[in-house]
C-alpha cells in the first residue's frame, strides 16, 4: 500500500497539452476517482502513474519514493484495462499466476497463492478453464485478481465498467467496491460516469481540458462545486446556471435574472461573500431544489415533461434561461403554461460571471 503524490505534472503531445500542471495527493488506501469528459486528461494522468507514458514535466511519488523514471514493470502497480486485457489463449489459472510465473517464483508458492486468490474471488471452480467466453463480472474479478497476485501497492482502473451494459453496472460497482475493501489498496479509478465516481470513490478529482477542477468527497463536489464546470458536470441533470446581476432591495441582496424575474433574497453568508451590488454573477441551484408556488418570484414557460420512472424532470424555458426541475414521480405535475418557482434557499450557489469560480459563503 502506498500514497501517490503528483507534483506539477505536465504532459504535452507535440503542440497539444494533455495535462496542465496537475497537483494531486492520494492517500494510502484511498479510492480516488478521476472524473471528467473524454479528452480531459484523466487517462493520460493514469497512464503516467502506471508508467506507460513519461511526464513532460513534474514528478510522481509513491509514498516517499520518486517513481518518475521507474519503468512500468517495476512500479508495483496493478492495472485493470478498459477491456480487462485477459489473456484469452490461456486458462484462468495461467492468467492468475502469469506474473508469478514470469518473475520465476517457486512452483509451490505459485500454486498456493493462485489457489488462495481463486478461493477469495470465487474462481476456484474454473481454474483450468480457458479464459474465453467468460461473463463480464468474472472477467473483472479475474483482471483484478491477476493484478492483485503481484501484491501491488497501487491499483489503477481504466473505465472498467464502460463496456458493461447498464443493468449489470450496479452489480459490478458493488462487487468492485467490496473487492477494494478486501484488498485495502490505494485505488485510482478513471471514469467519465459521475454515478460510478459518486457511488464508489472516497474522493473525486474532477478534470476538464487537462486542468484539475476540484478534489473532494462526492458530497463536497456535489454540494459545493468549485466552478460552473463541476456544477454542470456533477449531478444528473447538472446544476441550473442562470446569468444575472446582484441588486439591493428591501435591505437584502437579490439576483436580477432579467426575463425570469428577481430572485428571493440571498441567504446571509452568501450575500456577505457576494459583496457589492450590480456585480455580474451566475446564479446556480440544483434541479432537485426547485420549489413551485403561485407566488414564487421566478417564472418560466413550461416545455417538455420527462417521466423517468422514480423521477419526473420538467424542462423550463430555453437557451440561456433554461432550467430543469426534478420531482418525485408521486408529486403532482403542474400543467400551467407559465410556471412560478423558486429554488430552496439552501441549494442556491453563486459563481463569478467571468471564469465561473464559486463565490462561497463563510
Amino acid at each position, binding site marked *: 500500500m502506498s500514497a501517490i503524490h503528483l507534483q506539477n505534472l505536465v504532459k504535452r503531445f507535440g503542440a497539444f497539452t494533455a495535462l496542465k500542471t496537475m497537483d494531486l495527493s492520494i492517500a494510502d488506501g484511498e479510492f480516488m476517482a478521476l472524473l471528467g469528459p473524454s479528452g480531459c486528461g484523466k487517462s493520460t494522468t493514469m497512464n503516467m502513474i502506471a508508467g506507460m507514458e513519461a511526464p513532460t514535466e513534474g514528478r510522481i511519488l509513491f509514498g516517499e519514493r520518486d517513481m518518475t523514471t521507474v519503468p512500468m514493470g517495476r512500479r508495483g502497480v496493478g492495472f485493470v484495462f478498459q477491456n480487462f486485457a485477459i*489473456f484469452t489463449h490461456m486458462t484462468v489459472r495461467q492468467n492468475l499466476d502469469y506474473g508469478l510465473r514470469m518473475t520465476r517464483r517457486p512452483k509451490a508458492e505459485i500454486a498456493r497463492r493462485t489457489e488462495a486468490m481463486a478461493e477469495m474471488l470465487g474462481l476456484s471452480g474454473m481454474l483450468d478453464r480457458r479464459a474465453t467466453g467468460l461473463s463480464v463480472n468474472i472477467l473483472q474479478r479475474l483482471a483484478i485478481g491477476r493484478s492483485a497476485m503481484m501484491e501491488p501497492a497501487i491499483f489503477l482502473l481504466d473505465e472498467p465498467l464502460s463496456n458493461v451494459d447498464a443493468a449489470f453496472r450496479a452489480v459490478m460497482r458493488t462487487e468492485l467496491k467490496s473487492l477494494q475493501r478486501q484488498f485495502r489498496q490505494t485505488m485510482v479509478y478513471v471514469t467519465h460516469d459521475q454515478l460510478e465516481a459518486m457511488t464508489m470513490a472516497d474522493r473525486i478529482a474532477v478534470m476538464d481540458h487537462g486542468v484539475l477542477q476540484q478534489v473532494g468527497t462526492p458530497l463536497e463536489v456535489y454540494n459545493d462545486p468549485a466552478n460552473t464546470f463541476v456544477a454542470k458536470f456533477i449531478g444528473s441533470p447538472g446544476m441550473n446556471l442562470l446569468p444575472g446581476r446582484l441588486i439591493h432591495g428591501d435591505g437584502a441582496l437579490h439576483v436580477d435574472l432579467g426575463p425570469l424575474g428577481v430572485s428571493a433574497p440571498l441567504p446571509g453568508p452568501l450575500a456577505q461573500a457576494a459583496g457589492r451590488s450590480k456585480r455580474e454573477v451566475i446564479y446556480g441551484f440544483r434541479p432537485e431544489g426547485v420549489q413551485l408556488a403561485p407566488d414564487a418570484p421566478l417564472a418560466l414557460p413550461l416545455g417538455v415533461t420527462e417521466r423517468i420512472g422514480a423521477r419526473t424532470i420538467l424542462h423550463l424555458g430555453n437557451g440561456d434561461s433554461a432550467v430543469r426541475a426534478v420531482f418525485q414521480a408521486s408529486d403532482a405535475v403542474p400543467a400551467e403554461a407559465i410556471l412560478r418557482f423558486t429554488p430552496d434557499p439552501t441549494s442556491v450557489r453563486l459563481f463569478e460571471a467571468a471564469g465561473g469560480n464559486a463565490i462561497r459563503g463563510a
Partner: protein
Amino acid sequence: MTHPVNSQKDGAGLGFRLTLPAQILVLFIAVFPLLMQLYISLTDWSPLTGATWPQAWQFWNSFANYADLLTDDRLWAALGRTLFIMAVCVPVEFALGLALATLFVDDFPGKRIAYSILIMPMMVVPAVAGYMFFMLFQSGGPVNDILSWFTAEPVAIAWLSAPNLALVAVIAADIWQWTPLMFLILLAGLVGVPDDQLKAAALLGASPLQRFITIVLPRMKVIIIIALAIRSIEAFKIFDTLFIMTGGGPGVATETISIYIYKITTQDLIWGYVAAVALAILIVLSVAAIWAMKRMAR
C-alpha cells in the same frame, strides 16, 4: 409450408438438380485431369509412339511405372534436394521475416521507404530474379568482388559450376525473393496482437522476451501456420529462378522435383512415367500437408 416434410425433401432434390451442371463442371475440371493422368501413368505411352492418348491402353504395363519410380535414384535425389532447399529456405525466411516484422511494428524515421524497399524483391518476376542472381554469382561477378575486398586477395569462385556452391546460390536467391512475403504476413499478424495484452503482461513483470513467447507467438499461431504452409508449398515447387541460374546443373547438382519432371517431360518424353511420378508426388505431398496442418493447428 403445409407439408413441411415433403417440401423439405423436394427442396433438397431441387437443389441438387439445379446445381448439377455446376457440379459436373467442377468434377470435370478437378477430377478429369487426375483420371487422365492416372490412366496414362499405367501405360508406357509416349507421343513418339504415334498413338493418341486415349489409345494409350495399347501400351498397358500395369504398375511397372510405379515400381520403376521406387528404384529411380535420380528421382529420390531430386526429392531429397528439394526437401533440403525447403528445410533451409523456409526457416531462414521465417526467422528473417519475423525479425524484420518485429522491427517494423514500431515507428521509426524512414519507415515507409524502408518498407517499400523491403518488399520489392517479392515484386520481381522470378525469372528476372534468376537472371539477377545468375549475374551476381558469376566468377567475375559482384559476390566474388565483395569477397575479394574482405579477404584482400582476388577471389574467383565458380559458384554456379561447383555442385555444392550452386545449391548455396540457389538458396540465397530464394531467401532474397521470398523473405519479404514472410515479412508481410508476419507483420500483419504482429500488428494484430492487442496492445493492451502486451502492456498488461509488462505491468505483471514480464520481460520483452517473455512477452514475445507468452503473448505474441501464441496470438500469431494461425498466421504463422499459414505463412509456413504457403512458403513450404511454394518452396517445394521451386523452379523458375533455379532453372535460369543453373538449369538444374552442374550435372544434376541442383535438380529439384520440378526440374526433374520438366526434363523427363521435354527431353526424355516418357509421359507414362512422368504421369506416375507426378501423381505419386501429389499423393505424398497432400498426405504430408494435411498431417502437418493438423499437427500444427493443435
